């Protein structure tokens, strides 16, 4: 028997052929990750700069000014701050026929944090609001530099937008204003959140956010109703809300977020305010909850002689894209190439404003992290290493959208 030629250990299969689309995508993303890694100090420095500028909702000017200065320095087109304070810059496309929007909110929750200093540790950053939403803002200012390093020029314009008046009583006013007044047709939107890398939100949960005000009227009848003030009636309201039957399907919940009232130990509280948020996959259920809470207010008010009113500060319809939508599919392709397991859940973020404007949109996260609440402060920590993957993901998704059809 003639000696057989041993088979090579790793026999080339179809040697010399072009790599599969999956492998080509993986290779591209690896390249994006390396380039993002090389820009790490720029990203982290901007993150610290953003994070240490106080920006409570309705007072984001200083943060947006810094963003606009950075956009100008980088040489973006149409750098501007609009009437409600949103900051914008455009990375112009080769063709410029389509506009892709990359956005994040610039405002933070706490009005007067004692100390917004960010600490840099070996593998993470620690400080208030690093996760919500300083990284996403820094990603906006780093993205143009990353595209430049990668020598990537998309066909579409990339509009980079930091929105104001997003949280709490802001109720997405910034993004709504932009969409209504920018005069640009937006093909698709990509909302950036600092955490968690792997989230892929394509659907919004419905939301009802409100304050229940409980006030002693000017003509309050002390003899008839007693001297308990507004806290006791509000406790009854809380008790009644907690008894509202909520279905498991469609998924529904009520969060009692804040309660405040009174001024001293020895003064009857003349006003108490309860802030709550109801969430549901069903708009009908949200309307029912709204009606039930209104009824509770009226009933408790009538019995106690105290003025109770519901002030709805936000109501958003549930809805969004279908999981089979081309945009979701394209994002999933990138997630798969990055070996990220997509976390699919409904969100209450800026996505709902895109949805209302009939613009297909997604929300993605940029790194992993955690948040710790104390009574009056928020401390967050975010990991540094996953950031390059987070940025690569953004470039990858934008490229997929730019090259394909998402309608």
């Amino acid at each position, binding site marked *: 028997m003639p000696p057989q030629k041993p088979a090579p250990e790793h026999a080339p299969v179809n040697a010399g052929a072009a790599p599969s689309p999956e492998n080509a995508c993986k290779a591209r993303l690896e390249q994006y990750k390396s380039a993002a890694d090389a820009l790490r*100090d720029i990203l982290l420095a*901007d993150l610290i700069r953003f994070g240490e500028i106080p920006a409570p909702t309705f007072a984001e000017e200083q943060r947006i000014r810094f963003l606009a200065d950075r956009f100008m320095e980088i040489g973006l087109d149409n750098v501007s701050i609009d009437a409600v304070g949103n900051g914008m810059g455009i990375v112009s496309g080769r063709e410029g026929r389509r506009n892709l929007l990359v956005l994040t909110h610039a405002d933070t929750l706490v009005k007067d944090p004692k100390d917004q200093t960010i600490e*840099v540790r*070996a593998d993470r950053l620690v400080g208030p609001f690093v996760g919500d939403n300083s990284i996403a803002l820094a990603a906006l200012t780093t993205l143009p530099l990353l595209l430049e390093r990668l020598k990537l020029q998309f066909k579409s314009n990339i509009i980079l937008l930091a929105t104001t008046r997003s949280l709490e009583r802001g109720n997405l006013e910034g993004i709504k204003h932009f969409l209504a007044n920018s005069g640009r047709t937006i093909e698709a939107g990509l909302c950036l959140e600092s955490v968690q890398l792997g989230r892929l939100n394509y659907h919004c949960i419905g939301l009802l956010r409100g304050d229940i005000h409980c006030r002693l009227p000017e003509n309050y009848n002390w003899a008839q109703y007693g001297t308990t003030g507004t806290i006791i009636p509000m406790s009854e309201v809380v008790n009644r809300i907690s008894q509202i039957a909520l279905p498991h399907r469609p998924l529904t919940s009520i969060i009692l977020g804040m309660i405040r009232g009174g001024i001293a130990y020895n003064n009857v509280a003349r006003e108490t305010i309860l802030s709550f948020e109801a969430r549901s996959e069903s708009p009908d259920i949200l309307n029912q909850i709204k009606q039930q809470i209104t009824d509770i207010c009226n009933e408790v008010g009538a019995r106690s002689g105290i003025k109770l009113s519901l002030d709805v500060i936000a109501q958003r319809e549930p809805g969004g894209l279908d999981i089979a939508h081309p945009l979701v599919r394209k994002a999933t392709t990138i997630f798969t190439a990055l070996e990220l397991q997509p976390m699919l859940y409904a969100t209450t973020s800026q996505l709902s404003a895109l949805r209302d404007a009939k613009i297909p949109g997604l929300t993605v996260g940029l790194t992993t992290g955690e948040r710790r609440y104390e009574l009056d402060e928020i401390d967050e920590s975010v990991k540094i290493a996953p950031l390059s993957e987070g940025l690569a993901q953004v470039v990858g998704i934008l490229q997929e959208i730019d090259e394909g059809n998402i309608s």
Partner: protein
Amino acid sequence: MKLNLRKLLKKMSGHAPAKPEQKKFLAADWLPKHTFHHSQFADLKSLVTEKERQNLRISLCLPTLNEEKTIGKEIIMLKSELMTRYPLLDELVVIDSGSKDQTREIASSYGANVYLARDILPQYGERHGKGENLWKALYQMRGDIIIYIDADITNIRPHFAYGLVGPLIRMPEVQYVKAFYDRPLTLSKGVRVSGGGRVTEIQIRPLFSLFFPELTAIIQPLSGEYAARRSALERLPFPIGYGVETAHLLDIYHHWGMSAFAQTDLDQRVHRNQSTHALGKMAFGIYQTFFRRWRAYGYATNLPAMETVLRQFQNRDGRYEQIESPIREEERPPIIKIPEYQRAFGRFP
């Protein structure tokens, strides 16, 4: 190498880049010409152009000892803006005194060149103190301009470096630029505005007012942030500990006069608070430096030998006990006198 400060100071006069002013000094004249705000140098593009036109190399030194909480942030903030975005700095070096925490690892991971002070010029022995690091940095770094920035600043910004280097690039007569700022001290959770450094106000300013009134124009004489030309620093002796800033001011003033100084307002600097006992040690070291120069300048001939033990008290369970802290403010000679330095840089006294 034993240091004869008196002989040295006499010799240094021959290398003075500028003669001290003979006319009466008026702080009102000096201040507006030599006092800046960092924003005056914020046009980094033009600063870099001018630096390149003058063919200058600029080095930044961060002296450290157990600064793991702040070092990473300082490196990121300075490197990203002043190296990656604008090539103002040519090198960023950490000279560490032997930290027990992760200072060196963190500094290195964020891209600084990290050295242990004891590994630099080891044949000259190991001393402990910030001044030792600053002196050894002169041998390790290659810049024509050296910037020193303390590593414990929590609100570091790029202007801490470009604000100091700006006057050196723009004004050839300036040799040494000092920082000044508001100095809120970090308390448990918040910050409060202090009236200025306690040692500055209680020790240095009264001493300068008594004996060197012109130097009172330096708003924050003990600030740990300054930049200087190598050609000046290499000719200065360096106290290894607390006295290094005071020594620099006195020696530069003594030989080159006020025109060699500038100062820049860096707005606010947030740093860790120090106990009164710790500040007592600092003041003790500064007194040694001060009186050594007083004697060397010939202002006093009969000063007794100085003690090198600081005695402080503490109360333990109702009993007072004395704590003795040996503090010997040794000095390194001007580095230009070191043969290794002469060979490495081709510069000679």
